[in-house]
């Protein structure tokens, strides 16, 4: 049985790396923003909630 796979070019690999880093940074920034706003909105109550 023969399968065909595609080997990305150097330019494609480089571009994918750049996109991956950007997505990672954006996600980290998003998490930080949501965390920071949650703390600001809830204040000390953020650790006083009953679960």
């Amino acid at each position, binding site marked *: 049985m023969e399968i065909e796979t*595609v080997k*990305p070019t150097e330019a494609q690999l*480089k571009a994918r790396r750049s996109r991956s880093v950007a997505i990672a940074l954006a996600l980290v920034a998003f998490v930080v923003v949501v965390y920071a706003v949650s703390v600001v909105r809830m204040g000390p109550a953020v650790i006083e909630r009953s679960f």
Partner: protein
Amino acid sequence: MAFLNRTILEDRGAGMSEATAGDFFALLKPRVMSLVVFTAFVGMVAAPVAVNPFIALTAILSIAIGAGASGALNMWYDADIDALMRRTASRPVPAGRVKPGEALAFGLVLSVLSVMALGFLVDWLAASLLAFTIFFYAVIYTMWLKRWTPQNIVIGGAAGAFPPVIGWAAATGSVTLEPVILFLIIFLWTPPHFWALALFKADEYGRAGIPMMPNVAGAASTRRQIFAYSVVVAIVGLLPWWLDYAGAPYGAVAAVLGAGFVWYAWKVLRMADGDREMRPAKLLFAYSLLYLFAIFAVYLADTVAERAFGLPGV
């Protein structure tokens, strides 16, 4: 035991994208975004409510991403005409670095994300205004007005004028006359700014089939309209002082800036019909950018000075 024969093919551009993060960033129209961020920031600081810095940062970030998302949707839809103009031919989609589908998905995802973030984390009135702005720019302006009427940038200018109102709404949860005047300054500034550009880029707009004012009504009519709008902008720029939202120093600077605007527009009005270089139009285009930045900067300085030093009207 089965053996697999693998044939490795070199991907020559048909499959995996070669778009870099920089190409996607370019889809957000960073230069337009910087003006959006600045005017939204001024609207937020001018509001009579102290906003927590994290909330303010989140609001500005959401507004910037929403504005960028509408830019990406604009570049997706306009790729055909962007390819025909030197000014826009190197944009990521017409240049082939980003596929149209990628730009569309990027714009849609960021639109939803920015509106949701602004709504859940800051304020829903601001979020609904941001959603309306994105819709207005991407659908009303880009898809409808731009290729249909020479009033395209007059009406479409509303999209660029909303950021200070969104900033104000993010801080206060409401909209009053003060941010509406900031809206009016940008709204009325848009026609002379873009028509100055359209005068010296008329050939390119004509080639792309976009009905800009010089291509439809002629250069002479456009020059008259530029002058009329410039006079109105100069007057509206003084409204914050007249209505006591800003102090005398703001009024003085706004008067000087407005006089400069009218002066450059006058030079455009007096421009000869056969002027190929159109230096007055290029000067007005450059000055108009300086004007908008400067008048918002003075408004910001006036507000901050009043808060920091308790100086009424300074």
